[in-house]
């Protein structure tokens, strides 16, 4: 029963969303070039399905690679900021400043620095755009860790790294996964930004561009939906990881 609900509710939500979208377009009588409706999309998918498959795969692996980097670097940075007040005071403004810079404007800089290294550029941008939430959440998790928890291991003379691994990390895992869910979506945006702004003919971004040059609006919307679906798939991968590693945190009721 609960199993059933877990699958049925998201699907129902998505169906309702699609129905609302179709209705909105229909009621307003919007032409494709304002907003394509869901019923326009199957044609686009069936016509270009091969491109969608290869494009999705290319977008996906770069995103996952960038995200993995972001997890590693974000966790490292978060640890530094969580454990050291000075690092926190010094790094935070820099990171915030860096993050307030629209990444779209950095794509050309990156592209010029690493000319032709498309894979590298794309992964790099996915990484750059998505590590911040992870660093923030790990940093906050550490700096607000209840001393009672920390003391359990401190009293054994455990090193900071051990305390992090055994206490802080598991204790902040729910927040970490929350941040990861945000980062997943950001990493996608990073990958696509490169594919669209510094196009190299690969990934779903390229498909979007070709829809654009040909004024094929249903194709463009189809790409956006494909991106959303990829995002949802990655999200459920994160949820699966969360169930394994942080299932304890879910409170019953409510």
């Amino acid at each position, binding site marked *: 029963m609960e199993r059933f609900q877990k699958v049925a509710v998201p699907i129902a939500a998505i169906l309702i969303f699609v129905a609302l979208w179709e209705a909105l377009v229909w009621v307003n009588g919007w*032409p*494709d*070039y*304002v907003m394509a409706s869901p019923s326009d999309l199957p044609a686009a998918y069936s016509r270009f399905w091969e491109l969608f498959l290869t494009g999705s795969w290319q977008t996906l692996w770069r995103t996952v690679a960038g995200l993995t980097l972001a997890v590693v670097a974000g966790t490292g940075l978060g640890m530094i900021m969580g454990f050291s007040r000075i690092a926190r005071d010094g790094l935070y403004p820099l990171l915030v400043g860096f993050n307030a810079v629209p990444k779209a404007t950095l*794509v*050309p800089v990156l*592209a*010029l620095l690493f*000319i*032709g290294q498309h894979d590298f550029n794309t992964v790099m941008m996915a990484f750059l755009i998505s590590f911040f939430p992870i660093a923030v959440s790990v940093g906050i998790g550490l700096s607000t860790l209840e001393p009672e928890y920390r003391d359990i291991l401190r009293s054994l003379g455990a090193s900071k790294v051990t305390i992090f691994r055994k206490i802080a990390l598991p204790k902040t895992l729910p927040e970490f996964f929350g941040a990861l869910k945000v980062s997943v979506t950001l990493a996608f945006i990073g990958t696509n930004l490169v594919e669209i*702004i*510094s*196009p*190299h*003919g690969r990934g779903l971004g*390229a498909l979007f*561009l*070709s829809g*654009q*040059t*040909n*004024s*094929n*609006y249903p194709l463009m919307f189809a790409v956006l939906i494909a991106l959303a679906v990829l995002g949802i798939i990655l999200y459920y991968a994160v949820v699966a990881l969360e169930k394994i590693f942080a299932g304890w945190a879910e409170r019953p009721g409510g």
Partner: protein
Amino acid sequence: TVAGTAHAQTDMPFALDWKFEGPAAPYFLALDNGLFADQELTVEISEGAGSLDAIPKVATGAYPVGFADINSLMRFLDQNPGAPVTAIMMIYDKPPFAVVGRKSLGVETPADLAGKVLGAPPPDGAWAQFPIFAAENDLSMEDITVEPVGFPTREPMLAEGQVASVTGFSFSSTLNLKRLGVEEDDISVLLMADHGVELYGNAIIVNTDFAGENPEAVTGFLTAIAGGWKAAMEDPEAAIEALIERNPAANAELEKERLQMAIDDNVYTDFVAENGLGGIDDDRMTAAIEQTKSVYEFQNEPDASLYFSSEYLPDADARMLK
């Protein structure tokens, strides 16, 4: 307009395809010189993010008039049959589509492209027409190494010699290259229109529903546009001044050069000198559609009359630029 007041002002917001750069100066000059007001039009000019941004703005009726590439318009109308938009006045009789290369890298004629690296942003308007250019010049695509680049990196890569040539709009790429320190003598501009490509370029487009209801206003608008270009050719300085007022961080020298290039290469062609600004030649249009078929697969049978209508053009003498 309210019935009975034949002389009421008509609002005609105008959607440009691009930012406020030199080639947009004539429209501001027309505005500042009161040419629109003379036609009882209230015009506000908005910048855009490409033809694909401007076309839907006009198709939805939010902007009755706009400025966009007619080749993009053809595709738009093919994909969205019945959309109420069409071109009514050709401005770039010769499209600015070009291959820009560097002589020092061995690019001077189309034949030189073989065996060299060509930088091309996939969504670039000029790149979209490159196959026509290649076919007309007997170039085999297999002989050319195409490097996909982004717009922002296109000219820097050429400046650094990472590619031997790029596709782009003549006035954009050339001037960007100069800004990056490439000697003017070193730049070779291969305007596609000079090498067998018959396509037309940017035109004034109109929402046909609006035009049907306000034919005089539309004609008045085109009259003012022609007047703006005429005035700009006579006094480019004044045109640029009008532009700088809207884009204060712009570099006046550069924009003047850009405007001049547009006038010389794209607007004031032999055909325009003879027939005035804005009209098209039906045979050339047919040829252009034929050429387009080689780079774009039409969903519906192309029909030139859907893409361009000359019924709103003012008399030829109102369109003479000199």
